[in-house]
């Protein structure tokens, strides 16, 4: 009733090419962004920022990067954690080694170096596909773990291999409080999400999708597989690298290679699969699901136990968390293999016809 496009006429190509075709969508998204920037800082407490919102924003950014590679270009990668690590350590090194390095430039340089590493490990994708490529990118993960643990230069020769940054500031704006960190990450996410969305709608995005759907056919119609695949690796690693920099700099403040272990790669891949392959929106859903659900279960299970008159131990909560989480993943994949984003779009489709479906 309220959500339909009757009467919304497009009279120019520009109007026809908007990201959100329906005016209600446009307004809703603008309102959401405005709320995220203006409303949220008045509403939530510090725990919400530090434990949920900031990790959510950063991992959503990383998930967008993974989605470009896995969802849009069809190149399955298990090296996302490694690219995050490259981003974090490269940003760290440019930040501390060059005097007066602006924070944003340092983070972007982390993305740049992640791009180089990502493209290098993307080279096998020209020959191998699918599961084999996943194993090849796994090499990136092991190599980076090794390099950041062993090569002292990357960690500024700290004895423990753990590095830390502080006194973050951008043009005199110090990023210290949770609100500032949140806004900083949100800014990055909004800009990168918009760029990514436009990229996947453009010619290059269509090339990626053509490669994903059938690479031989794509090559026949004149798409260069090498260019398409490597550009997907480059763009994806850049975004993941920046996310890695944010994870180290803004979220943890001090980190060791274990922060970007293989678990992180799996986590990012799950986000894309659960959120929805080949959907920018899906990256947000996936990140929210993976970040929020374990914490939510962790807090709610003891309370439920309390209501039922049982004392639930910490270990039980942790085990139950794994079980419920695993069961939900399986359930989601059976019920909706295209992820939460597909559920979302089905919902929207139904709303457009509501209340008179045909």
């Amino acid at each position, binding site marked *: 009733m309220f959500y339909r496009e009757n009467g919304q006429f497009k009279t120019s190509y520009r109007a026809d090419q908007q990201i959100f075709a329906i005016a209600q969508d446009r307004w809703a998204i603008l309102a959401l962004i405005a709320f995220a920037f203006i409303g949220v800082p008045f509403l939530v*407490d*510090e*725990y919400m920022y*530090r*434990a949920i919102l900031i*990790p959510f924003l950063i991992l959503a950014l990383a998930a967008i990067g993974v989605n470009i590679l896995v969802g849009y270009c069809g190149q399955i990668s298990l090296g996302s954690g490694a690219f995050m690590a490259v981003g974090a350590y490269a940003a760290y090194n440019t930040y*501390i080694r060059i005097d007066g390095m602006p924070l944003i430039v340092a983070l972007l340089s982390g993305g740049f170096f992640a791009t180089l590493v990502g493209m290098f490990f993307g080279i096998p994708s020209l020959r191998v596909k699918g599961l084999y490529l996943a194993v090849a990118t796994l090499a990136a993960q092991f190599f980076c773990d090794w390099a950041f*643990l*062993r090569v002292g230069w990357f960690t500024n020769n700290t*004895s*423990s*291999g*753990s590095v*830390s940054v*502080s*006194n973050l500031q951008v043009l005199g704006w110090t990023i*210290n409080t949770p609100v500032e960190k949140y806004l900083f990450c949100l800014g990055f996410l909004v800009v990168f999400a918009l760029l990514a969305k436009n990229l996947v709608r453009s010619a290059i995005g269509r090339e990626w999708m053509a490669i994903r759907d059938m690479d031989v056919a794509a090559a026949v119609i004149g798409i260069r597989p090498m260019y398409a695949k490597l550009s997907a690796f480059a763009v994806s690693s850049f975004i993941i690298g920046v996310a890695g920099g944010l994870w180290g700099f803004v*979220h*943890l*403040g*001090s*980190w*060791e290679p*274990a*922060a970007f*272990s293989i678990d992180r790669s799996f986590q990012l891949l799950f986000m894309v699969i659960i959120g929805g392959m080949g959907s920018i929106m899906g990256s947000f859903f996936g990140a929210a699901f993976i970040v929020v659900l374990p*914490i*939510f279960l*962790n*807090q*709610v299970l003891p*309370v*439920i136990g*309390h*209501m039922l008159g049982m004392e639930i*131990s*910490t*270990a039980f*909560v*942790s*085990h139950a968390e794994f079980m419920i989480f695993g069961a939900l993943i399986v359930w989601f994949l059976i*019920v*909706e293999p295209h992820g939460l984003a597909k*559920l979302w779009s*089905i*919902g929207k489709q*139904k709303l457009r016809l509501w209340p008179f479906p045909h």
Partner: protein
Amino acid sequence: MKMRNLALSVAVATAGLSSALVSTTAFAQAKEQFFPSLVYRTGAYAPNGVPFANGMADYMKLVNARGGINGVMTLLEECETGYATDRGVECYERLKGKNGGATVFQPLSTGITFALTEKAPIDKIPLITAGYGRSESADGGIFKWNFPLAGTYWVAADTIVQDIGKQVGGMDKLKGKKIALVYHDSPFGKEPIPLLQERAAMHGFTLSLLPVTHPGVEQKATWLQIRRDRPDYVINWGWGVMNSTLLKEAQATGYPRENIYGVWWAGAEPDVKDVGMGAKGYKSVMMQHGAELNSDVVKEVLSKVHGKGQGTGPKEEVGQVLYMRGLTAAMFAVEGVRAAQERFGKGKVVTGEQARWGYENLNLTQAKLDALGFKGVMRPISTSCKDHMGASWARIHTWDGSKFVWSSDWLQGDEQIINPMVKAAADKYAAEKKLTRRTPADCQS
């Protein structure tokens, strides 16, 4: 149908969350000192994490059974970290403001300690890393909020080298010897390296560094190297499953277990009991206490906590090494609060900031320790603005096939070596962070 299911589950979840919020706010009470406890009862390190958590929980119960801290009851809440840094940070954020504010955090992981070291000064909550954490944080002039009470990894490494020196008949005999450090490849495992290198340069022994990746079961290559190099001594800087694996590999290689030294996280019952007689002769440095089955405090826990059916975990575990470590960690946390009450008002709940003063002015004399039931378990600890460690005493104990027995006298970390290293590392940290040393006036506050 799908949408309806989804909507239903969302509704249930929201209901759950709102009730969670309501019930937590309803609990807030006065006269309770809140001690958050970061634990890992699951994951690769759980066998060692569980006894620690039990010891901590039991001691808090014992304090309450004794009548609290001058009447203020202790309140403990656990949060599972699984030894993962980001989960630890999440736990910290969740617990720091709960129940009137956290008194002190004990991260129980070197990685989490590193992450929280950046956050503690902002939130004004002290950190106790009793016998672990970052070694340079013993320097209170830079690390205002960190308290590596009763020893650091550098003290441990130093005392191990001293004991090896005794074994070979004097420190001068170390020249030309080969010592291998088999370490867990994480910040925890890397902590002792600077000190061992310093000692190697001093005494002329060669130090070979053999990293083992998490969780530590993959040691074949390491032991191939040991078989080839034949080091005179092996130092094991391991944790969890890595320790028993190491002992089994040593047995398989035929490397004499008498020549293996563990750090104190590598010298507890879960590490050796599966290997049994195969680990006979294995030594491990102990920061002050070891397995203290006959100590007064253990008897008191058994009668006042376990005897009333309120014990945490199995009764047989009470008094074992890791249990005692958790128990002493809890004791430090409580005694700091008691010290803070002396200044800020007896019988009052102190804030984290006030508790910090307590930890900085901790003076656990032998008489006080004896009264707490720690007779023979510990030596006195007294901290100051400069020295956040308080004491650097350690002993070596040896596994005789069924239990640990003391095999050395009290050893003390060599201040001549450790203090300059602590100062240099702390200054480096300060320079990186653009911090200045605390002034004498700040020490008074």
